[in-house]
Structure formats: structure tokens, C-alpha cells
């Protein structure tokens, strides 16, 4: 029985009795990625305080200030042979991820962003970036960037992190 099956079994047997519906949805949500994740996940708008400030390198994907990286904690794949959405050659993206809600100053919108780890090589070690806006501790895994999200990969070693727009964040 794989982790997904097991999780569903747990959901029906125990989780639903003891935790809120929202928690269950978040738990399911963290097993998915891409646009399908969007309706399942809670949205965080806590990081708008800085929206009016100048965003110096908000349009450079090799800078930690790039707008999509608002909830990242790790190494930017853009500096490691990948791009902001592409894992470096020879690594594999994690199928599970955490999400953030990031403000794009270019169009004034907030976007849901999925952070997927790229896995199977040792730590890239360049472009360390910790921002953690809207990040939550591991009891909310869908918003947590401390966990090794390569955990479920065949090769579970963390290398770097990409960020992928899921869609505009619902108000």
C-alpha cells in the first residue's frame, strides 16, 4: 500500500473523525501539484505589507528577490543549471510540494505558487534563498518549507527548488 492509498485509508478511518475538514483538504492538497491543487488549498494574504515598497530584483529569476520566490527556503534552481520552473539536468522534480501566495508587482496580482524540490543530487549550494512569506510550520505541510519535499522521490536527496505559477490567488 503506497502512501497515497494509506493516506486515503487514514482519511476515511480516522482523520475525518479527529481533524477539521480544512485540515483533511490541506493534507490531500499536498499530494498534488499543478493547477489541480488550486481549489483545495488555503490562501494566505499576509504578505501584502511590502507590496508598496520598491522590489529591486523582482524580475530576475536568479535573485532571491524575484517575485515568485516569496515563500522559498532553499537553493534557487535558476542558479544551479535549471530555471525558475525547470529542474537542473539529471535531477527529478518532486511530485509533492508546498505553496505560497506571491504578489507580482508587474501586474499587481497575487498568484498561487507551487514550490517543488528538484531531487537526486546533493545540495546545489549556490543562491541560498530564504523568504518564507506565509510559510507555516510542519503541522501545515502544504505551507511548510522545512520538510524535504524530495521525501517521496525514488532518489530523495534535495538539490534545489523551482517555483511554478498555479494561477491567480482567489481573494
Amino acid at each position, binding site marked *: 500500500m503506497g502512501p497515497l492509498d494509506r493516506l486515503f485509508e487514514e482519511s476515511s478511518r480516522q482523520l475525518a473523525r479527529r481533524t477539521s475538514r480544512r485540515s483533511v483538504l490541506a493534507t490531500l492538497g499536498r499530494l498534488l501539484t499543478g493547477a489541480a491543487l488550486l481549489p483545495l488549498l488555503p490562501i494566505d494574504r499576509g504578505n501584502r505589507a511590502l507590496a508598496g515598497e520598491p522590489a529591486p530584483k523582482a524580475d530576475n529569476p536568479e535573485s532571491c528577490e524575484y517575485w515568485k520566490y516569496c*515563500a522559498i527556503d532553499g537553493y534557487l534552481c535558476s542558479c544551479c543549471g535549471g530555471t525558475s520552473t525547470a529542474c537542473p539536468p539529471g535531477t527529478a522534480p518532486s511530485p509533492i510540494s508546498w505553496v505560497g501566495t506571491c504578489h507580482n508587482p508587474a501586474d499587481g496580482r497575487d498568484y498561487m505558487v507551487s514550490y517543488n524540490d528538484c531531487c537526486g543530487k546533493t*545540495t546545489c549550494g549556490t543562491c541560498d534563498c530564504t523568504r518564507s*512569506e506565509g510559510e507555516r510550520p510542519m*503541522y501545515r505541510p502544504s505551507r511548510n518549507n522545512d520538510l524535504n519535499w524530495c521525501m517521496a522521490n525514488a*532518489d530523495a*536527496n*534535495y538539490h534545489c527548488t523551482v517555483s511554478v505559477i498555479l494561477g491567480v490567488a482567489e481573494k
Partner: protein
Amino acid sequence: MVSSARWLAVLRLAAVSLPGTLAAATPPPPLPAERISVQQLPPSSHHWVYVFDDAFANEIDMRVHLYDGDHYRRLGQIDAGYYSSFNLSPDGATTVVATTYFARGSRGTRTDVVEFTDNHTLAVTGEIVLPPKRAQTLPTPFNLAYSADARLLYVSYVTPAASFGVLDPVKKTVLGEIDTAGCVLVIPSGAYRVSSICESGRLLTVTLDAAGKELARAMSEPFFDADRDPVFVQGIPTARGYAFMSFLGKMHEIDFSGEQPRISAPWSLVTAENQGVWRPGAQQVGAIHIASGRLYVPMHKGGEGTHKDGGTEIWVFDMATHQRVARWPMATQGLTRIIAVQVSQDAAPVLFAATDSAQLAVLDPRDGHIRHVEKHFGQTPWQMLIP
């Protein structure tokens, strides 16, 4: 072993290079041959600290350094593998490390394991191989924890489904696995209770028998709101349990001495006008000297998202009165942001602070005076434990 020609050479050298001395005096005998040995640790001290280096740029090579806060020396190293967690046995005699190895360094067959190190010899004395479910996360005191009587050892699992393993640290076996219904971490209490933190802001407490089987479970009332003001999972040991600090600086003290956790009304580290302006932030967010009731917290000015940024100051609070009793800027003393704090529990305690530039500082917990700073103490010293 020393020829007479050699003696003459020494005499000649002395005569040339030390004209002011008695060149004709008998030269000292040569230094004897030395023997290699392995250093034995002296009896342990209250001021020894175990410092976890997350080795953030080389995560397959994490390690724990044992450091002497009186003599300012490294005492030894315990290797910790990949994305690992560590803790100490209740008697301080053993370090446990939960870690992962891959057959080809960063690839290949994954082996999750708990390793036991004798804290007197710093040799690994045994291991327990785990199912490949170990929670690979940053340091907390609750990734891996002993029961109070050291008969059981609990290890967090996240696959991402959450559960925990119950281990027998004496027989070195896995006793079983307890599902935690999405709640995470292993907060140990009594014999044998394990509490986990839930996204709903509640604690799930599972009671086990001596063989690690579940006897009962219960949910607490919610004590925090993960949306509005989440708590750090780096709980701080108190006299009767742990305190959980929130991102905005609320202290939630929880008494774990009874059958179920008793949660006190929170109090705040910051005044109303400073809420959201000054805040705690670190990898290890606070330490309490229990006898004196002094709490040490790395604090900084910053907004949402800065909860890992590290403190520019250490603030000191009285746990009884909830008053701030001191505020120590660190930059003026040459430290960068404080990323972890720990204090010893003896009557003449020392305070340790690790920074985001891998400084390890030894401070006087009475006045914040820095007694010593080690530079380049590993890469990322993010957690410190003292037995």
C-alpha cells in the same frame, strides 16, 4: 639515538644563534618519541553543549559538535548524515541521531536509521533501522525524543502522511507505528504519552503501554490559530513541560506533567504597539534557565515571512512576571543575526548563541556580555542541546 656529531651540531647552533646565553651549558636532552593515543573525554560538565550543524550547502554531511563552554574548545564530533535530527537521552549519556543514508551518497537505496552514540567515548554503539518514513525536516526537540524513563524512543514519520515510530532503545528494535491523524512531531511526557501538534491548533495526545501499543488518544482544545499567529514547533523546555512561542511573540506555556496537557493563557513578548514590528525569529527560538525563570529570545524587527531571519537582539524575560528584564543588541558586539540560543541549567549558567554566519558565542546570561566567539563553527549551527 643521538650521535655525538649531532650533539656538537646543536652546541654549534646554540653558540651562533644565542650569543647572549651560556653557549657552553649542557644542552637539554632531545624530546622523547611520542605515542599516538585516542583522547578520552574528562567527566562531563554542565557547560558542554551539543551543537547541530545542518551543513546547509552539503546536506549529506550534517554533524553534531560537542563544545566546552568554559574552556572554549571542541571536544569531539558525532556524524549525522542527511537531513537528520538529534536528541539526548534523559541521563545525558547517549546521543541519538535519526538520519538517512543513500547507497550512492545522494542516490540509490535509502536507509533510515537511528544511531546511538556513547557520549563518553563518542563512538557509535548501536543502531535501529527504520522504515523509510523518517520526517526529514529542520531541527526541533520533537523530531526524535526519549520517554522520561528512557525505555521508549519516539521518532516522527512524514511520508507526507504523519505518524510516529515507537522504538526500544535498549533492545534496539522497532516496536510499532502510531498514526497521528495528520498531527506532527513527538512531544514526550510521563510514561508513556506522546503529544503531536495539529494544524487545527490542538494537541493530539496518544497514551501507550510499555510495549508501545496505543492505549488511548485525546485531542486538546485549540490553543493557537495557524492562519493568524502560528506557533514555532521549536518548543522550549519549562519546569513542567514546554513553551511554544508564536510568530508574533505570544508565549503558550503547556504543562505536560498530568494525564493530558494543560494549556495556560498566553502572554506576549511584545507590547501592543510593537506587535508585528518586533518579533522572534530563528531556527531555535528561545531558551529558559528554569531555576531563575529567565527566558532568552532572539528578536528582530521584521514583517511576515521573517520568522527564520534570526535575531539582531536577545531579549530577556522573567517567566514569572512576564516582564522583559533586558534587551541586548548583538551587532555592537560583533555578532550577526542570532539563529539559535541555549542556556545551561546549573547555578552559574552560560548562554550560547549561534549566528547566521556560523559564529558560536558564549555569553554571560546575567548581562549579555560576550565571553568568547568561535568563528566558522561549521556551516549552519541551527540547534544546541545541553543534557
